[in-house]
């Protein structure tokens, strides 16, 4: 079960205005099955590139990525792609405006032969239950849905192909706090119930602290610290981690002893 997802000395370069920019400079990371790894860092640190490399959207210059010991190469099969899914940041741009929810979800299920034509409706209803949306939303176009509902649809789209790994790239950053809480709870629930392995990319340390078992701090294309969540927050080792923790705004002022219980 060890090392379900493994990054080995991963380098990624981009060509920017004729010059080569080294975005990832030798990333090595292991994620065990069922673990939720938080990746934090500021914009430009390479965290989104790391996700893109895992999903096969960019080609590494050097190093490799393994899923359950199998190398994910340059050209991935449809079946390989199915195992790793992503939830994107922008709930507007991540849904095709001209497709209904039903058409997007059933296209994926039918393509991967996860369900026959006869079982389609039941499967669609099940996935909508899973992400807590009414079945009526199946026939809606994204423009009709709120930000939180769209993000639930984006999660449903990722889940519908029954992946092993879920990558969430700033998946709650664009949402209002009250909606954010719902989505975080949903992601947590999915990890616990389905045994999904999750890589949760965020600049929001408070959210990462609630959701993740382990945190990798990225800075300038390197992982500068990679330890269990509470250890990182209680006793940061790297200077950059300390700076990041210091800058993330204090929440101690908030007194929650009076939270009503339902």
């Amino acid at each position, binding site marked *: 079960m060890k090392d379900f997802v493994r990054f080995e000395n991963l380098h990624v370069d981009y060509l920017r205005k004729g010059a080569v920019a080294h975005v990832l400079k030798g990333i090595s990371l292991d994620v065990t099955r069922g673990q939720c790894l938080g990746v934090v860092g500021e914009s430009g640190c390479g965290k989104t590139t790391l996700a893109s490399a895992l999903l096969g959207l960019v080609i590494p210059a050097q190093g490799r990525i393994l899923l359950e010991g199998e190398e994910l190469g340059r050209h991935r099969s449809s079946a390989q792609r199915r195992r790793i899914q992503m939830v994107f940041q922008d709930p507007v741009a991540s849904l095709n405006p001209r497709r209904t929810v039903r058409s997007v979800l059933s296209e994926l299920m039918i393509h991967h032969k996860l369900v026959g034509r006869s079982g389609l409706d039941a499967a669609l209803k099940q996935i909508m239950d899973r992400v807590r949306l009414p079945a009526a939303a199946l026939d809606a176009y994204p423009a009709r849905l709120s930000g939180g509902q769209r993000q639930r649809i984006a999660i449903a789209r990722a889940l519908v192909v029954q992946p092993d790994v879920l990558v969430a790239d700033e998946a709650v950053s664009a949402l209002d706090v009250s909606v954010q*809480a719902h989505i975080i709870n949903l992601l947590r629930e999915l990890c616990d119930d389905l045994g999904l392995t999750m890589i949760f990319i965020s600049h929001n340390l408070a959210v990462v*602290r609630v959701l993740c078992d382990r945190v990798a701090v990225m800075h300038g294309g390197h992982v500068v610290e990679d330890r269990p969540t509470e250890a990182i927050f209680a006793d940061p080792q790297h200077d950059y981690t300390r700076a990041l923790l210091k800058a993330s705004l204090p929440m*101690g002022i*908030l007194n929650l002893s009076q939270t009503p219980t339902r």
Partner: protein
Amino acid sequence: MMAAQTPLLVMDGLSLGLGSGNRAMIVPSLNLTVNAGECLGLVGESGSGKSLSLRAILGLLPNSIHRSAGRILLRGPTGLAEHDPASLRGNGISMVFQEPMSSLNPSMRIGDLVAAGLRAKGMARGKARTKAISLLREVGFPAPEKRLDDWPHQLSGGLRQRVMIAMALSVEPALLLCDEPTTALDVTTQEQILLLLERLKKDRGLGILFVTHDLSVISRIADRTAVMYAGRLVEEGPTAELLAAPRHPYTLALLSCLPQAGTGQRRLQAIDGTPPAAGEHGGGCIFAPRCTFAAHQCLTAEPVLADIAPAHRTACYRHVLLREGLSR
């Protein structure tokens, strides 16, 4: 601090609606005051009407939104008065936007951007340039004299936001309107911009109206905080008091949604349901359908903002329950 306050901005019953006539009201009636040397934080979720209310001050409402009633008073040489919004821009009042890239003219060098406001007031070119350098230095732009000829796209997000603040300051405003100025920035940059705004507030005695959805930013910068829900002000009070002991269930619910440090919690509190759409509200308290404290009374008559402590107002019949909850 409570004594001798000079109000810079007074919103008196501001009403914003969709289209003309008395159709769906987005903001039914808003009363707000911003004093000199004070930062008022206006918090709410998307669709709460907080940004529209801010834009209404400068007359920057989109075409689909109509201002149907109410007055916006601003301090001028002759005291508080209503002004033509167009005459205010670049004159005693400035605005800082969320997205520094799309709000800076990409075809102007940063020196010219900052000097533009000064030149428009008739300042000589050389003098305006010198002033631009000193403004950029004031907002913490490193080595401004060397970088006056840089283009906006060459700057990082944080530096762009500093340029925007320098532009805002160039017209010597008494009041600064901020529309989520830190939302698009990284945490460390965000911290720097908040420190800068705080310093400007102290040094220049600026009044700041700071609109955001982020309570943690509010806790850092605002002296007073006003919470908006579905176009209505539901609670207003000193920030520390409001966040530590909220007296409106919506404020409490918003705070509970935030991940708490060090509690080891695995589930976050969340508010069930969704805010009502504009014009969808039947009667009673606007938050009642989602409120855990709601009683029969809440469904029949809409509560009005009432003082419950010095400078602390809430629009809730059941606010005493929240206080008792605190002492429990």
